């Protein structure tokens, strides 16, 4: 005989009375386990999506706007003995053959069979036909298309010369390709392929690599290289170090869009770039390979003037020897004979040169510089070298001057026959020469300050290319492998913890289940009061008696935990179903599947058991405190206190009630009537205080009713109310549970985010902007200028009063609440902070240092260092999606492979800027010079013109894939996530309330069973059965109404700001339905319990007394 033996015996003997407790423990534990499993499932689903979208890809090199040889993939693959695949990836748009349906931001990928070998589940087709396209399910659904139908893809031709660069041609760079849909591939067949982590599938279109490369004018080139595992058994992963080593061993200058070519007439060699301007790292490497190399910078100038004579549109070269002597001053210029004759120039004359430089949004600024003619040189030898002009795309192939496309406006009327003749005979031979320093000062830009590097005869024949290559870090020219698989798995494992989220949602349900369990367990113990008395009489200490019962409770808790593990999986599946359907707005996908790790199930089961055991321990604390003789003779005492005891209890509860009431009133008065949703949190807190006051007041009423003395007159109604005071704590627990539950369910609505209210204000989440637009292809023109609008054929009258704030975009991961993955590298937006500052757009939530309101956007310009760039983001993005706070930093790598940090200096509240980090545009250009144009726009437009403006701009920039929507709708999409979470909480809280109403039924049953003899006495003295039933119903109905009433009144105060806010939409219908359901459930359970307890021959209870 041991204590455990006694516990087990007692459990088995009282199994029926413990069954309810076991169920309560199982429900509580099951909900806890289920919530944790939901977390596992979301993480597991994201991991599965990551593996599905990457297939067997381990590493990737994405050079974006830069192009390398497709053969590089073969060479690296051979070095590593791994599967590699070159891909040409271009953003485009897709429309159906009849243009009925459209998709923007389509990832058009030129691939070959090697790509499909990296899929998790390679598709059945062997190759993509030259005139076909393979699309993924997301694109097929968007376009409502299927195999056999035709599509029109529009892609932007990759250009080595950035559209923002000087002399970048302005001709249309879009190319349209009509293809037939060969197949629609599933996610596992690489349909979901993407390097960015998101649970929302991208639009993917796969084209045969040679077809796409040819149509885009980049034959045999690619801008994405994928590496899979080693070939053969085991599929060993390739490390980043080995891939980088293989890259260094196999890359050539051509992969950096550089070429080393011999100059004509054996004059040495020169290094040129397809990008026209040579990147600084490349030029440094060239000089490192040969210290005697010479830099050359050739530019196109508008005009050269001496007095009244002018020569239009000429090439001028900045260089040193052999043409420009070392001693020539920076303000001197050498003219070739042709120019000197044309201008009638002589040495010493003052020459004025006019030229364009390109600013932001291709804003052209004409500048002038004055030189002194330092000499006139004959057009022969080095001075007559047409190769001094780089391969400007709009110039090189032009037959005559009228065919030039420099990206600058050309006054054709100024071109004379002799100018044309010069071009036909001498092509781009420069007409003038200045020092390299002067040229770099005038024409150097973010893309480079040289157009070639020339090497002397002595360098030719040596291993010059290898020397340049060895001195050049491929990462500095955009060639760098990233561990994409590792990043993807990190993004999924660090994703939003849905386990904790659902624990929060379900906590009231868990509390209700545990309270029900504790209530039922306590009832069971109360039925065994004589047993308690005997144990005390036999010499058991009260603590030991409680421990004996706790052992029983522990077994119940452990069994409940075990049952909860099984039940929890069902709960999790139900929650996942909800997330995939009615709560889909919170996760943006229906592809969540069930995953549960054994560790989670064990932790959940143990935690559930632990919490249940703890709850039982709390319930047992007051047991065995009464004298043994009382327990043996009378059973558990009524809780009606004596007058003196009641007096103190009533004073205490009255004090608590009054203090809470005063505090609530004070808060409301201090806050004042709320404007909109301001002060919502204060009112919620006031509501909570009112709730406490209400419950304390109920306790006070129960106390005073229970201790009241005899009365000459008693009424039947008094009897019912007085009965409620017999088990004061039991009654109060019921009131408290119902009050708290109804308060939570109804008041949580105050935290709903409303996007409509005050959307036009600058301080709102829209920043006061009417429209938000995102383009697939960069728009380099300024849409605020006449010339910019003219370039798209937009009638300015339609855009009167419209102002556009443009943003440069560096694609990254979506750091908004719509992306469940933890964003590793959020999207960057480059903006001129002044444009937002002058508007006072958005409301700042936090700033790293105090700054006047109007200057906070200008924090983007302050504190910049070489390796730290300030950024501003949305508070929700920063806190939840990135897991950071204001003041923290993130690591980025610029276009030249240099690492730098982005420091979050401020955050804005609940805005449409969610998902990205904003930096100063100049810092953006400095680090990502090749990212041309603008792809995101915020637009101010008069309210009545919004629709027209949206239509006009969408139509005009249709080929750029511009999608425009009202800013308030974008905000609503973000708000939908939080609002969906709140709805989930309300649903689960409502379930908890329903469980609470079941608890009320249990209390009724218990109360009536305990008093069967009293009720029998009433029957014996002449009360009818209906009267008894009514007495029971009214006694417990009072508890139900008190509980719901206190909760409802407190909740009304809590949601007052939301009620009176203009345009606010509280879910009155669903809340009313929930409360009505709980009230009905409570009444039904009370009625059922009363009927059950009063069944049979009640009078027998008198005889058995």
């Amino acid at each position, binding site marked *: 005989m041991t204590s455990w033996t*006694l516990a087990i015996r007692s459990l088995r003997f009282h199994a029926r009375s413990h069954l309810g407790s076991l169920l309560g423990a199982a429900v509580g534990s099951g909900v806890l386990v289920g919530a944790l499993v939901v977390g596992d499932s979301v993480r597991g689903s994201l991991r599965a999506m990551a593996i599905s979208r990457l297939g067997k890809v381990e590493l990737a090199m994405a050079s974006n706007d830069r192009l390398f040889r497709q053969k590089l993939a073969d060479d690296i693959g051979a070095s590593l003995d791994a599967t590699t695949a070159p891909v040409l990836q271009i953003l485009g748009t897709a429309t159906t053959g009849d243009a009925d349906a459209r998709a923007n931001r389509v990832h058009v990928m030129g691939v070959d069979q090697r790509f499909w070998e990296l899929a998790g589940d390679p598709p059945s087709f062997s190759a993509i036909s030259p005139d076909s396209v393979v699309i993924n399910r997301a694109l097929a659904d968007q376009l409502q298309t299927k195999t056999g139908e035709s599509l029109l893809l529009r892609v932007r031709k990759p250009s080595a010369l950035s559209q923002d660069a000087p002399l970048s041609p302005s001709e249309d760079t879009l190319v349209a390709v009509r293809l037939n849909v060969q197949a629609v591939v599933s996610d596992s067949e690489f349909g979901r392929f993407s390097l960015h982590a998101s649970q929302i599938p991208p639009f993917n279109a796969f084209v045969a690599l040679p077809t796409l490369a040819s149509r885009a004018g980049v034959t045999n080139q690619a801008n994405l290289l994928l590496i899979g595992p080693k070939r053969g058994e085991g599929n060993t992963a390739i490390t980043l170090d080995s891939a980088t080593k293989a890259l260094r061993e196999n890359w050539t200058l051509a992969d950096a869009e550089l070429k080393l070519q011999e100059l004509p007439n054996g004059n040495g060699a020169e290094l040129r770039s397809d990008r026209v301007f040579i990147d600084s790292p490349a030029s440094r490497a060239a000089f490192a390979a040969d210290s005697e190399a010479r830099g050359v910078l050739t530019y196109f100038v508008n005009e050269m003037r001496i007095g009244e004579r002018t020569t239009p549109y000429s090439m001028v070269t900045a260089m040193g020897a052999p043409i420009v002597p070392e001693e020539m001053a920076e303000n001197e210029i050498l003219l070739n004979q042709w120019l000197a004759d044309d201008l009638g120039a002589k040495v010493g004359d003052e020459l004025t040169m006019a030229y364009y430089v390109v600013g932001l949004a291709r804003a052209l600024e004409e500048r002038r510089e004055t030189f002194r003619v330092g000499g006139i040189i004959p057009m022969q030898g080095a001075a007559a070298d047409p190769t001094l002009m780089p391969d400007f795309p709009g110039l090189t192939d032009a037959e005559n001057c009228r065919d030039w496309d420099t990206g600058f406006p050309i006054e054709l009327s100024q071109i004379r026959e002799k100018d044309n003749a010069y071009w036909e005979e001498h092509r781009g031979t420069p007409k003038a020469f200045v020092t390299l320093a002067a040229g770099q000062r005038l024409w150097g830009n973010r893309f480079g300050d040289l157009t070639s590097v020339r090497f002397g005869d002595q360098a030719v024949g040596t291993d010059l290319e290898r020397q340049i290559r060895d001195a050049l870090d491929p990462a500095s020219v955009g060639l760098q492998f990233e561990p994409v698989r590792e990043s993807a798995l990190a993004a999924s494992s660090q994703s939003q913890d849905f386990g904790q989220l659902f624990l929060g949602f379900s906590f009231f349900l868990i509390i209700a289940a545990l309270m029900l369990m504790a209530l039922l367990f306590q009832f069971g113990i109360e039925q065994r009061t004589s047993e308690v008395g005997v144990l005390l009489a036999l010499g058991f200490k009260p603590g030991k008696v409680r421990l004996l019962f706790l052992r029983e409770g522990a077994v119940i808790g452990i069994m409940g935990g075990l049952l909860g593990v099984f039940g929890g999986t069902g709960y999790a599946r139900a929650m996942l179903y909800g997330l995939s359907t009615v709560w889909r707005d919170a996760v943006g996908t229906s592809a969540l599947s069930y995953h549960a790790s054994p560790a989670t199930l064990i932790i959940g089961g143990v935690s559930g058991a632990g919490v249940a055991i703890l709850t039982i321990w709390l319930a047992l604390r007051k047991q065995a405190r009464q*004298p043994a003789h009382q327990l*043996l003779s009378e059973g558990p005492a009524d809780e009606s206190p004596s007058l003196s005891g009641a007096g103190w209890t009533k004073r205490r509860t009255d004090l608590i009630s009054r203090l809470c009431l005063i505090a609530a009133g004070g808060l409301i008065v201090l806050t004042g009537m709320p404007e909109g949703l301001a002060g919502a949190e204060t009112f919620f807190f006031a509501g909570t205080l009112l709730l406490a006051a209400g419950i304390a007041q109920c306790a006070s009423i129960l106390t005073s009713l229970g201790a009241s003395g005899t009365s000459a007159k008693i009424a039947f109604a008094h009897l019912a109310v007085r009965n409620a005071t017999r088990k004061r704590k039991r009654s109060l627990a019921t009131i408290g549970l119902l009050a708290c539950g109804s308060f939570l369910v109804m008041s949580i609505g105050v935290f709903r985010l409303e996007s409509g209210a005050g959307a036009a204000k600058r301080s709102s989440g829209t920043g006061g902007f009417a429209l938000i637009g995102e383009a697939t292809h960069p728009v380099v023109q300024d849409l605020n200028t006449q010339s910019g609008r003219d370039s798209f054929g937009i009638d300015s009258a339609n855009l009167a009063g419209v102002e556009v704030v443009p943003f440069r975009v560096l694609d990254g991961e979506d750091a908004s609440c719509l992306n469940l993955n933890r964003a590793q590298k959020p999207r960057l937006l480059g903006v001129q902070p002044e444009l937002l500052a002058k508007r006072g757009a958005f409301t700042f939530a936090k700033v790293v240092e105090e700054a006047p309101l109007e200057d906070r956007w200008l924090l983007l310009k302050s504190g910049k260092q070489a390796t730290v760039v300030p950024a501003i983001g949305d508070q929700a993005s920063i806190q939840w999606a990135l897991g950071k706070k204001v003041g923290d930093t993130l690591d980025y790598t610029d276009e030249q492979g240099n690492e730098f940090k982005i420091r979050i200096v401020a955050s804005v509240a609940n805005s449409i800027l969610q998902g990205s980090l904003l930096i100063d545009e100049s810092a953006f250009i400095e680090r990502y010079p090749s990212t041309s144009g603008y792809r995101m726009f915020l637009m101010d437009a008069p309210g009545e013109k919004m629709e027209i403006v949206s239509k006009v701009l969408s139509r005009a920039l249709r080929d750029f894939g511009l999608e425009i929507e009202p800013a308030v709708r974008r905000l609503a999409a973000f708000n939908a996530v939080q609002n969906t979470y709140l709805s989930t909480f309300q649903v689960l809280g409502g379930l908890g309330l329903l469980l609470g109403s079941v608890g009320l039924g249990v209390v009724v049953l218990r109360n009536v069973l305990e008093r069967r003899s009293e009720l029998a006495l009433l029957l014996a003295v002449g009360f009818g059965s209906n009267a008894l039933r009514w007495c029971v119903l009214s006694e417990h109905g009072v508890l139900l109404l008190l509980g719901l009433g206190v909760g409802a009144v407190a909740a009304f105060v809590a949601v007052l700001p939301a009620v009176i806010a203009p345009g606010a939409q509280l879910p009155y219908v669903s809340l009313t339905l929930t409360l009505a359901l709980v009230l009905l459930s409570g009444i039904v359970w009370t009625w059922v319990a009363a009927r059950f307890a009063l069944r049979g021959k009640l009078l027998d209870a008198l005889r058995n007394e």
Partner: protein
Amino acid sequence: MSKSPPLLVLERITKDFPSLSGATPVQILRNVSIKVSDAESLAIIGPSGSGKSTLLNVIGTLDRPTRGSITLEGDDLAKLDEDSLALVRNRKIGFVFQAHHLLPQCSVLENVLLPTLASDLPNRIEDSEPRARRLLDRVGLSARLSHRPGQLSGGERQRVAVVRALINAPKLLLADEPTGALDRASAENLAQLLVELNREEGVALIVVTHSMQLAKRMRRICELTDGDLRELESTEGDKL
């Protein structure tokens, strides 16, 4: 008359019960004084509501007196805390109630051994089991060790309760209306058993009873009336 110091000494014990209406407390016991020696037997009789059970509860440390002192084996029980009193109840006092209060989920042997669980002594159950078996055999229940209380008659249950009360070899056995719920024959048997055990185990016995027949089998009889205890007569007790 024993010359050793008395086992139990009550001096001017008073027990008041407060009134719910706040009026003067009701005095159930009024200056009750008595001494009981080792192995002595005493019956307390009196009308219903006279406070007999209250007096027994006070003696058995199940209730505390309002005033007065109780000394058991020289220890002043008023000075002991609840844990120490529990120890006293466990080791020195055995209680037999009118309702047997056996645990229905435990067997006869387990019910008898129940008081040993309260003790922190090592091997307490192993040491007590032989005694339990012997006592159960003594009361004629050796064949019912594994039976549950629900399988026993009223008299048998009460005999088990008596053995339970004696398992820790207490100095004092208190019985509150032990035969009150039994039929006549069973009551007679139980009374006989109590007297025999009083002698065999050398345990002092105090019985609260309505039954004069049972009372006369005790060596001393006291009557409790209106809170006052008055000794009626000393008898030779039950002559065996």
